[in-house]
């Protein structure tokens, strides 16, 4: 009888820890999902965060192959900004450092904070687009009626697969709720370094 008791206690503890472990697994799915998307290039998110300019200089040995980069802009629901690229299309040599700007104007009567989220198409080519400077790395804040030009500095890696001739870089600008604008969430901070 005592043996059964011990057995039971052991099993209950094991099963309860399995349940707790699965709760942890649910949360572990969040970083796993990001890693999976990054490795496979799914989702077209440009996970290559800000590249150190010094490193970029070394790597950037311009080649003769040219690709076309198209710039797109969208605004998320309830975002009262005008938002557009200043240039819609650029020809870029692989490895060449390029600079372009996006334009944003706050049409609302109060200060609004925005966060741009990038997406690259085709998705698997996202990791070859290296950004040195991007307005998407931080939240943007505009007073009522104010406007600004926002910088984007990047180069395309020379290891870009041969079949890619055109890359589309799309930004969706979301309104950041007041709560999160005041103190950027932990995830945001860790993501956008």
């Amino acid at each position, binding site marked *: 009888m005592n043996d*059964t008791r011990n*057995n*039971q206690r052991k*099993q*209950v503890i094991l*099963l*309860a820890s*399995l*349940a*707790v*472990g*699965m*709760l942890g*697994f*649910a*949360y572990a*799915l*969040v970083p796993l*999902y990001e890693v999976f998307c990054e490795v*496979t290039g*799914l*989702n077209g998110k440009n996970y290559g965060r800000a590249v150190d300019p010094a490193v970029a200089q070394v790597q950037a040995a311009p080649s003769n192959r040219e690709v076309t980069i198209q710039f797109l802009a969208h605004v*998320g629901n309830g975002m009262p900004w005008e938002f557009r690229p200043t240039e819609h299309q650029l020809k870029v040599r692989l490895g060449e450092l390029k600079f372009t700007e996006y334009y944003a104007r706050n049409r609302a009567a109060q200060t609004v904070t925005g*966060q741009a*989220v990038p997406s690259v198409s085709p*998705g698997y080519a996202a990791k070859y687009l290296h950004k040195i400077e991007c307005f998407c790395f931080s939240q943007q804040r505009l007073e009522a009626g104010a406007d600004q030009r926002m910088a984007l500095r990047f180069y395309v890696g020379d290891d870009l697969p041969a079949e890619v001739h055109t890359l589309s870089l799309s930004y*969706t600008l*979301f*309104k*950041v*709720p007041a*709560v*999160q604008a005041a*103190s950027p*969430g*932990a*995830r*945001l901070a860790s*993501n*956008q370094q």
Partner: protein
Amino acid sequence: MVAHAADAIPQRSRVWAYIARWLLTTNHKEIGTLYLWLSFTLFFIAGAMAMVIRLELFQPGIQFAEPLFYNQMVTMHGLIMVFGVVMPGFVGLANWQIPLMIGAPDMALPRLNNFSFWILPFAFTLLLSSLFMEGGAPNFGWTFYAPLSTTYGPPSTDFFIFGVHMMGISSVLGAINIIVTIFNLRTPGMTLMKMPLFVWTWLITAFLLIMVMPVLAGVVTMVLTDRHFGTSFFSAAGGGDPVMFQHIFWFFGHPEVYILILPGFGIASQIIPTFARKKLFGYHSMVYATAAIAFLSFIVWGHHMFATGMPLAAELFFMYATMLIAVPTGVKVFNWVATMWRGSMTFETPMLFAIGFVILFTIGGFSGLMLALVPADFQYQDTFFVVAHFHYVLYPGAIFGTMAATYYWLPKWTGHMYDERLGKIHFWTAVVAVNLTFFPMHFTGLAGMPRRIVDYSLQFADFNMVSSIGAGLLGLTQVLFLYIVIKTIRGGEKASTRVWEGAEGLEWTVPSPAPHHTFETPPQFPPIMQRDGR
């Protein structure tokens, strides 16, 4: 039944003693009864919501329900049927039957058992109370996709979240209890591979519950923190991803649908041999097939998301993995049919429901295979074809399974035979009504009628009217079922110990009604069956 728990407390009044007895009971039979009545009560509440849905869809246009209210009805109907009817119904059957079938005196952890049950009424009160709140009940469908439940969820979403937390705790505790009972309290001689199949399917279901209910708890917690605490798990604005919600949800959601059907497989595997008067064909393959289905359920969640823009490789993987499930399921259907082959079959009500289960569940399985095909799913997804599919596997599957089990074991629980004539009427009207309700949905779905929308185009009017008439009939047959159950509890022909001529197993060696305490000493196994069955 004897008021044992009541003896322990001072008898202030009869009412108190009665309440305390049910509130404090640790007896597996009483807790099983509580689970079954809770499930039955919620069945009528969620069924009433289905009636509102079908009444609104009786004709095109908006007649009875505002779109927002319609959405609330769809959401609450789904949530309560899944978490409040099918799951507690099966847990109730497990509580009653598992100790009786393995020769155990009770569940291994009786107090925990009491606690797991008594969480549930509070969870569902919390969930149902949201119907009366400002902004209404949750209206985003039972799948609560982000951002519908995060950015756009009504204030009552938080009540829904805590309700789900409580149901999750209850299910996990119940599952731990069932596993520990099965592992430790089997009578000597009953090895794992000699357990009745109902016990086997429940063992596997319990493992599924322990592995996926915490994932559901995790995802609702993420929704909660996204709503109120500034996290951005599912908000693209903060670096999150709404599609990730679907991945986590369906990682829970697909094993969940097998939680809703595996005990039903077990029930059919008990009933069919009894009334075919033959041993179950392919016992071992049944066990392995159940385990294979449970394993596969963890790697097919993507088939709910074919239209989210998955890469081709992932769509192919999920498609093939999903179609693979048809193999173990086919083994089961084959075994049931082979059990009936050349058996001396009789068609008492439990057998009728079990055969109805096998045939209609298989139809639902076939439409599932159609949905598993990626290119076809692009056409079918989010239409009434999907509604037809999952109602075919859930109503004639899970619900018919529970009803078959109720008719099968009711004489053992109450000591009385149910009214066979009324039982047969119940079955035949239910089987006609189920098909009348859900079969036309295949056609409207294939023709493009979207689900979860209050209104529809004129060309779907006739089929929808047929569905609504069927649904009304289906609702009425369940009132008949309630009457039959109450009538059986209150009286009727005395049931013998073995009840059914071909019944095998330990539960048929205790008197009918099963006394409050059974198997205080482990019984002999295999049992010697008396020849007193009908």
